[in-house]
Structure formats: C-alpha cells, structure tokens
C-alpha cells in the first residue's frame, strides 16, 4: 500500500485508510463528526484547526501510514495511538 498524503488530499480519502483516525486524534485534529468525514482537503482542515506546523503534521501522517503498512494488525482497533 503506498499512500502519499498532501495538503490537497481529501480528508474522506485519508480516513478510509485503516487506522489513520488514531493519528489525527493523537494530534488533536478530528477529521470526522456527525457530518461524516470533513468534506474538504487536509490543508483546509489543518487551517481551520489552526495546526501550527501543517507540513510536519502531514509528514508525520505519511510516516504513520508507512509504518502501518508494515504492521497493519497492530492498528486494527485503533489502540496504538
């Protein structure tokens, strides 16, 4: 699985990747709600949430997904955040 997330990637596409929700929550950004997945790009969500360093957030997210690809079972229940 190779996912390269950028600030232009739609949030709903990102949360489909199993386990990414834990990364978001761990970093104080909820990408889902009763409205469903945030209906815009990751860049817009990070702007609304006033994330100080969006580039670092995205870089960390990509690393997290890469790590998950190597160990998918460990994230199944979202317990590893």
């Amino acid at each position: 699985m190779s996912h390269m997330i950028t600030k232009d990637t739609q949030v709903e596409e990102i949360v489909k990747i199993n386990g990414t929700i834990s990364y978001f929550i761990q970093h104080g950004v909820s990408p889902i709600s009763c409205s469903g997945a945030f209906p815009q790009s990751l860049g817009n969500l990070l702007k609304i949430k006033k994330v100080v360093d969006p580039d670092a957030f995205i870089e960390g997210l990509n690393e997290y997904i890469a790590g998950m690809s190597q160990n998918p079972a460990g994230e199944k229940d979202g317990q590893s955040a």
Partner: protein
Amino acid sequence: MVKPMDSEYTLFIDGKWVDGGGKKFETRCPANGEVLATCAEADKEDVDKAVKAAWRAFETWKDVSPQERQRMLLKIADLMEANADKLAMIETLDNGKPIRETRGVDIPLSIDHFRYFAGVVRAEEGEATMIDKDTMSLILREPIGVVGQIIPWNFPLTMAAWKLAPALAAGDCVVIKPSSETPLSILELAKILAEVLPPGVVNVVTGRGSTTGNYILEHPGFRKLAFTGSTEVGYSIADAAAKKLIPATLELGGKSANIFFPDCPWEKAIEGVQLGILFNQGQVCCAGSRVFVHEAIYDRFLNECVTAFEKVKVGLPWEESTQMGSQINEVQVQKILSYIEIGKKEGAKVASGGYRITSGGLDKGCYVAPTILDNVDNKMRVAQEEIFGPVACFIKFKDEEEVIKMANDSEYGLGGAVWTKDLNRAFRVAGGIETGRMWVNNYNSLPAHAPFGGYKKSGIGRETHKMILEHYTQTKNIFISLSEKKVGLY
C-alpha cells in the same frame, strides 16, 4: 429479516425519482456490515436541477395560504405515523440505534415536529403601527425563497423534520442533503412528501459532503443555508453563506456539562447520567459528556453509575431488549477508542467499559461498551474535545462557583443540566452556564416547542421552536402615508 427498504434509491427532484450523475454508493448497516441499499450521488448538474425546480415551485408555493400549508404539514405527519414502524426499522438498520429509541423517540418527535409547525403557522401574525396619525407601518413576514439544508447521520429523520417543517411552514422551498451514511429514512420520507406537496417544493439530493454537499455550498441559487453537524464544517457553511451574503443557521458541536449536587433526586440522577451519554450511543451533539459530581457524593455516585452502566444491554439494535446499539461506523469506533487511550495517558482511570464489544454476535458491528472515565481533570483533552461516543468523563467539584467556572471552560455551549432539588440553586447554576439549553433534573429531552441551539462555537440560531420561522422568512415593511397633503419640500 425482511428488509423494509428498497434495494435502490435515486434522487428526488421536482417530484420525480431521477438517476444521479455521480457515482452510486452503498449504505450499510453498521450493526452487522450488511449492504442495505444502493443510492445515487448527485453531481453539480443534479444540484442545479434541484435548485431550479425549487425556484419554479416557489412561484406558487409562496402564495399557498397558511390554512393549506397547515393541512399539508398535518397530512405529512399522519402519513409518517401510518408508516412509523417501517420508518423506525429503516432508521435503526441504517444508523445502528436501538429500535426502542427510533420507535419511542426519533419517529414520534419527527412526526410531532410537523404537527407543531402546522399549529404555529396559523398563529403567525404581522404587526401594524401608527407612526403618527397620518402614517402607518405594516410589518409582514415573507418566505425567504429556496433553502439549502445539510443534515447529519446521528438523527437522520429527526434532523430532517427540524429543518423541513419550519421551512415548509414559512413558505420556502428546499433542497436537502442527508448524510451519505444514513440517507434511507429521508428518502422514504420523500415518498410521503411526494403524496402531499407540489413537485419541487422539497428536493432530496444524496451524496458525499465532499461532492454533493460542496455543490450545495457553491451554488448561487440559495437564499439561506441550514446545517447541523460539526463546528469544523460549520465554519465552511458560514464561509459559503458569507460569500453569497445569505444567512445561515448552524447547530454544531458540544461538550456539555451534566452537574450533580448532593441533593439531586438520586435514582433519577443516576439514570440522568445514562440519558446524557448513552442515548444514541453517545452520538449526540448535546451529550452530557462531562459529568460534574459534588465531592460529598462523588464516590458513592460514581460506584452506582458504574453498576448502572454495566447493566446496560448492548446488542443488535433491532432487538427489543437492546438498550445501546452500534456506533455509526468503524472509523467512529476507532476515534472513541483513541480518545479512551488518550484519557488514560492523561491520568484518567477507566471505571467502567473502555473497550470494544465483539462477543455475543456483535463481532461484525461497531459496538463500544458504556464507558466511565474517573479522575478526569477539566483541562484534559477528553474533557475538552468532542468524543461522540458513550464515554462519560467524571469530574469532582467542591461548590457552585467552581463547577460553573469549569462548565464554562469549554469552547462549546450547546446543552447541559443541573440536578438538584433546590430551586434557587438550579436557577443560579442554569443561569451561570454559557449554553443554549440547560435541563434541570432531566437530560436529552428535545421536543418541539422549546428552542434549541448553541452559544459560542456550538452554533447560530434556534430550532425546534416557532422562533426559527424568523430565520426562514424575511421582514417586509409596508410604510403607508394616509395623508392627502404633499410633503412640501419641492
């Protein structure tokens, strides 16, 4: 089980069922993962057709008399009632909430909403004022036009009723988008609306927020937007409305305080904790997710709540005995479990639950045990951020002043409750908390006839009350000179 819904749904535009231009999508039962139906996704052109149909309908709908609008609203309510069992089961299957809640709360409240606004519309009156003996001012309310409405997945039919009933009562036409997680009850409602309303008065477009939802926000044809959902998306709705220079009503997130004093009505109060955080699996914008308990009763109250939480039957939502059903989807489960882990790292202790349930035939669904986090500090993330699950954060307080300060230490202000037999204290605490709704000795009661909406980042506007009609209408002032004389300036 025979599924009560169709296997395929299209879009409801201009009184007809039409294919959408976007991709089709499946809606699944979160309780067991089974596909329930295939739905159409409205593309930009479909949204445009819906808006144009609504404007065509508005030409005549705006002049329909209040008597006739009342008759139609009552007819809608009657037809919903005749189909109540079917609507309840569809809502339960699509959302995962227990059948006892959809039968006992969601569907009856939705029906009553149409009846309430059927009554209200006949009591609406304008005003007349004599500015002086020769000058009369008439103040009238007129429908605003075509309204775009976007509703969430946690109370699909109820939220549709909250939005549609006042808009129809006001004389507006509507393009409404349900959540792509739970479109089925609204699509079934559209069948009822088709029997009662002229074509185009209500149009239902289904699809994702990132496509259909955004097409609604981008469309220049709306005169008002109405939204229930997260604060994050609320910013986008407000931004879209500002760019069009149109009003928006927003009902957004919350982190509400449920406050218990030593003189609370004990048994009812224990149930009040459950009503606050377990109702609808905690997926309620005004959930009582912060449970403030006075230090004098804290240990005993916590222990009895733990006992009560552990007795709650979590099960398949269509079974009559189930008290708590499935969360909406897998991602929501992961979000809840992530917050529980964060709470533990912050120093909270899991007093009850705290885990996913997969035993007892629940392995294919999205079930989380009723959870109590003890030893929570109001500054912790679990006490400040919306978890949107059955997770109660217990926080100890020593007096009124402290609890009011802590309750107000939140970016939200949607719901809240105080439990006490001291009426003076109830008023002091209810008045001191910055929130749109304070319950006294009850929780999550949301009937029509009492305004509901948020302070701070919980929203703008009040629904479930006749005052919402002000948001769905605009003021016309007719200013009349009764004098035969010239002004004399020219």
